């Protein structure tokens, strides 16, 4: 079915190398398409340093957060279809952002970029947490996969509709929210990249700490409990990780589809790792995917820019379709 599984370490090295290559490409692709700007004077350097580098890094980190969140969700809910979208957390985060913008006015007049960034992350985290909690409450726990997915879809729909309602009631929000709904990486600065990096470090550490518990969970809850996994606490912590990672990513790049679902599948198609490797590998793959989509989004029509969410949805849809064909589920 798949080619011979590679060693996870080799795959990690390969993903890192590809990310580094894309990082260089991301710095070299600007508003006019390919233009490395190496020869230029101060102005060129400013653009590289102030715009392209933070944007490129920020896109990668946001993708890594989505990939990590997807891998954690799939492991925690023992469901290959669990992803930040299906659990409603992404739309919950969007609703949180919309409500915050209503309170602050359509364009927050806060001069400190990192404060805006932190505020948006907080609101998105709260929204995502509320959505996941509601999903879990509706599904009465995670035991029934079908009920969980249905509840996730319902919560996603309702929270999405509420976000639309907020936009309808406050039309000035429409243009600011449009970027969230389509996904955008255009305004990622150093402040955003910094906040995202801190969140990635925290979520990555928490995920790795819980990786053995996730492995045990793969064998079923009773087995996991008999292996001494404190199920309740681990679950709570991992739901928080999912909500935080998704919330931070959505707050900064908007509703970018498919990365969280696609990254873990991509990794599992290439190797058969335990969660200790799956989580970091999924993060690497997610970063690679979103950065690749971002570079494409600014390159294809430069200096016009495609919404990055459109690119990931097209690429992700095509990939999952191919996967379906190959596996004949």
């Amino acid at each position, binding site marked *: 079915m798949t080619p011979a599984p590679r060693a996870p370490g080799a795959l990690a090295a390969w993903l890192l190398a590809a990310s580094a290559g894309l990082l260089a490409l991301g710095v070299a692709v600007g508003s006019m398409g390919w233009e490395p700007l190496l020869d230029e004077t101060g102005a060129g350097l400013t653009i590289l340093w102030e*715009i392209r580098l933070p944007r490129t890094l920020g896109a990668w980190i946001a993708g890594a957060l989505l990939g990590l969140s997807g891998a954690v969700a799939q492991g925690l809910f023992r469901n290959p279809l669990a992803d930040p979208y299906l659990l409603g957390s992404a739309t919950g985060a969007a609703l949180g952002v919309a409500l915050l913008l209503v309170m602050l006015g*359509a364009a927050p*007049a806060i001069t400190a970029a990192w404060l805006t960034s932190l505020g948006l992350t907080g609101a998105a985290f709260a929204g995502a947490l509320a959505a996941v909690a509601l999903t879990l409450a509706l599904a009465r726990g995670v035991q029934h996969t079908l009920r969980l997915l249905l509840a996730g879809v319902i919560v996603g729909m309702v929270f999405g509709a509420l976000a639309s309602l907020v936009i309808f009631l406050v039309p000035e929000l429409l*243009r600011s929210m449009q*970027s969230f709904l389509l996904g955008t990486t255009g305004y990622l*600065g*150093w402040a955003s990249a910094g906040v995202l990096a801190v969140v990635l470090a925290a979520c990555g550490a928490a995920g790795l700490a819980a990786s053995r518990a996730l492995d045990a969970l793969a064998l079923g809850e009773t087995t996991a409990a008999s292996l001494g996994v404190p199920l309740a606490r681990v679950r709570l912590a991992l739901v928080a990780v999912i909500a935080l990672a998704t919330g931070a990513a959505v707050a900064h790049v908007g509703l970018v589809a498919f990365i969280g679902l696609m990254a873990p599948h991509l990794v599992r198609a290439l190797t058969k790792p335990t969660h200790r490797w799956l989580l970091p590998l999924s993060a690497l793959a997610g970063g690679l995917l979103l950065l690749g989509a971002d570079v494409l989004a600014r390159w294809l029509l*430069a200096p016009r820019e495609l919404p990055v969410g459109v690119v990931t949805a097209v690429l992700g849809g095509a990939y999952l379709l191919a996967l379906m064909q190959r596996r004949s589920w």
Partner: protein
Amino acid sequence: MLQPAPAASADRRPATMHRIVREGGKGMRRRPLHAVLLAGLLLPLAMAVHAVEAIDDRGIRVELPRPPQRIVSLMPSLTETVCALGACERLVGVDDYSSWPPSVAALPHVGGLEDARVEAIVALQPDLVLVPLSSRALPRLQALHLPVLSLEPRTLRDVRRVLQVLGPVLQSGDPDTVWQDINREVQMAARTLPPRLRGMRVYVEVGSTPFAASEGSFIGELLMRLGAENIVPAALGPFPKLNPEFVVRADPQVIIVERTDAAGLRARPGWQGIEALRRNRVCALDPEQMNVLMRAGPRLGAAAHLLVDCLEGRLAAGGPGR
């Protein structure tokens, strides 16, 4: 475009011209004597009820048994055009965003571009519905056999064309006079711009994602006639979504933006180095000013004056606070 209806081509101008200019006493124009005589001769004919017809933006010929008396307009610029032609009192309903002239605020509002309420429109029993091409209500209204004229002004030339289609249909006002008034205002605005400000690099943001008004939009056309330089070329389409880096590299000297977005400009990565922001040359427009600028209708003369105010820094309010 326009098919003059038989025997209805008489010059039936209203006694008082609708004022679109901002200055008080400049709207009156002397009419050539022969036109007055002709109007006098044909007046009895023109007063009679005649069928009117026009070809709209879909290329469809629309025939009406008589000049419309109950008009619903679903686009602010069309509402303003109807009023500029002196037929404001024949409007019975407008879309949610029509706000000028102030008298239309009292009319029933029947929804927006995406959510026009078909039932409310039908209930108004209009004998003409003016619908933008992009309205989702268009096919539905058509299917209900309402008389629909679909017009969507996107460029300066479109503004003139819409006037020339609507004038004969309404049998009211003189489209050429309205157009000349717009033109004169734009020229006057261009003359008031100090020569040192000609060729200024301008960036007009119409959406924070960011969407810009390029040289190809009517705002760009106005700027060009004022002698300013738009940083966004027409080749990108009228209102392209840009890579923000493009704006930083073009380094505009003036940024024109809606007031709610003005405060956030400095927080965008790399933007604080833009000349317009370093020199505080951000023109922050309030919603009413934005309406004047964003509607391709009879108030484009006022829009030109607004742009001159922007270029001269009279509306600069781009400080960090609000």
